[in-house]
């Protein structure tokens, strides 16, 4: 379990670096595009589709980091009303259910990727490039949730 946690920590750093880099690139590219358009009356043709690819990367990898750091949005109004031991059991079930949902959606992505072989309009990349950040991040989200479920079993503090 300790090695699993260490692996998640490393993955967390990697996802964060990817997310931050994509955000920085996205912002720079959008800004350059605005300057080129309004100052030089021109435009970078590939800027917008590239920005959208970067938005997919930032969004999904950022979400994976948020789940790993337990910063995702959870409704806790009902949970807080439960006695502590019951709350722990309910959260354990909820965490497993969340992990199962992420894994289930993940298993339906190969069919989608198989349908996305055609090249995008401006960028010379296959359409599944847009899907890959979500696939990788759903995997990370599922791993983080499984680790959290084990933490509950081991008696760690419930994060609500």
């Amino acid at each position, binding site marked *: 379990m300790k090695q699993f946690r260490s692996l998640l920590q490393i993955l967390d750093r990697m996802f*964060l670096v990817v*997310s*931050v880099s*994509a*955000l*920085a690139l*996205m*912002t720079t590219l*959008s*800004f350059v595009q*605005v300057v080129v358009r*309004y100052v030089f009356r021109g435009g970078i043709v590939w800027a*917008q589709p590239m*920005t*959208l690819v970067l*938005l*997919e990367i*930032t*969004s*999904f*990898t*950022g*979400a*994976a*980091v*948020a*789940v790993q*750091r337990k*910063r*995702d*949005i*959870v*409704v*806790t*109004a*009902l*949970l*807080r009303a439960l006695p502590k031991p019951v709350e722990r059991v*309910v*959260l354990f*079930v*909820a*965490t497993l*259910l*969340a992990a199962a*949902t*992420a894994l*289930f*959606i993940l298993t*339906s*992505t190969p*069919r*989608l990727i198989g*349908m996305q072989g055609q090249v995008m309009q401006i960028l010379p990349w296959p359409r599944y490039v*847009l*899907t890959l950040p*979500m*696939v990788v991040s759903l995997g990370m*989200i599922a791993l983080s949730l499984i680790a959290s479920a084990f933490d509950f079993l081991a008696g760690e503090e419930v994060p*609500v």
Partner: protein
Amino acid sequence: MSGAVMLVVLLAAMAIGVPVGLSMGLSAVAALIAAGLSNAFYVIPQQMVEAVNSVPLLAVPYFILAAIAMNETGLTRELFDFASALAGHLRGGLAQVSVVASMIFSGISGAAVADAAGLGSIEVKAMTDRGYPRAFSAAIAAASAAIGPIIPPSIPLVIYAFGAGVSTGRVLLAGILPGVLVGIFLMIANHFIALRRGFPREERARLGRIWRSFLAAAPALATPLIIIGALLTGIVTATESGVLASVYALAVGLATRRLSFRKLFKILEETAIMSGIIMVLIAFGKPMGWAMAFERVPAEAAQLMVNISGSKFVFLLFVIILLVIIGAIMEGLPALLILMPVLVPVATKFGIDTVQFGLILVYGLIIGFVTPPVGIGLYIMSQVAHVRFEEIVRDVLIYLVPMIAALFVIAYWPWVSLWIPNLVFGK
């Protein structure tokens, strides 16, 4: 049938603590199974990717980046000093300053959380230093932070525009007057609270002090000018105004030597995580909305409402009550994503302008920011002000009166929302 299954699964999953985004995903899976479409599960990831692949939504990370950069580089402090010079002499003193500062900061930040966490800490410190009760200081800071997502830039309004298929610029401009209106209502409440509790006024600032504080705050004050000015003149799009604002905020940080490389990484890290939290909700909300539309849930809900009462006024009253209740038990953004596909078609059927309805929906749910038991603003201020949650609740409840009164005005007087967008873009 599968619409009901979807709703039950969604509510049950959220109630037991499944993260909201994954609850939406689970409900879409349940809806597809109930509709006998088990061979179409690939639609869920497909819709998720398509949801994020949207130019208007690029504004979300940019608006977050601008607000976090302003907070991290300390420019928020100068905004508060300027607001203090302008409004400190009014009855209610620093409580009025909190509202004015929040109204100005709303022109930079599109999220109430950024307002409460950044400006809130400055407001509470200033107020407690001047002898205001800590819980009251936290309460007014939380209530005024709720103006943040109404005055542009606004992340919930960008998301609404995307979901309802209306112009982002038009919806953002529609938020200006309602935001000012909420601020005025809060200031009127402050006036009477100050009379009853005997809060002090600050000395009226001389012109010299106002001018100096204006100059110090000018770099920060330029941000709302960039965003709102760009929207009003139509020079750039809403997304581009977000890019300009965020690059400007970082440039000001560099020029004033308040932005180190370490701080820049921290700003980008926080922006990436917050964007991830918001965008993944939008991603999971899309297949859920798709499943709802596939099952004709919005159309049936519209018909049901029309059958119950054909009156627009009764429908708006129902919406106001629903929003205040939902906002009290659920966070605003997920609630917006869940309610939007159902309520917008009903509102359209009643002849309510889609732009005005966006304001009603977004502001109605924002009231939940300061409503127990979920009120995230109260939790943030509890942390920031080091005061117990229950104590803030006691002081914040009175502010629900002006906030809900403002919601009625926004709902029943369409021109409050529509005057500026109609003036700029035409009807």
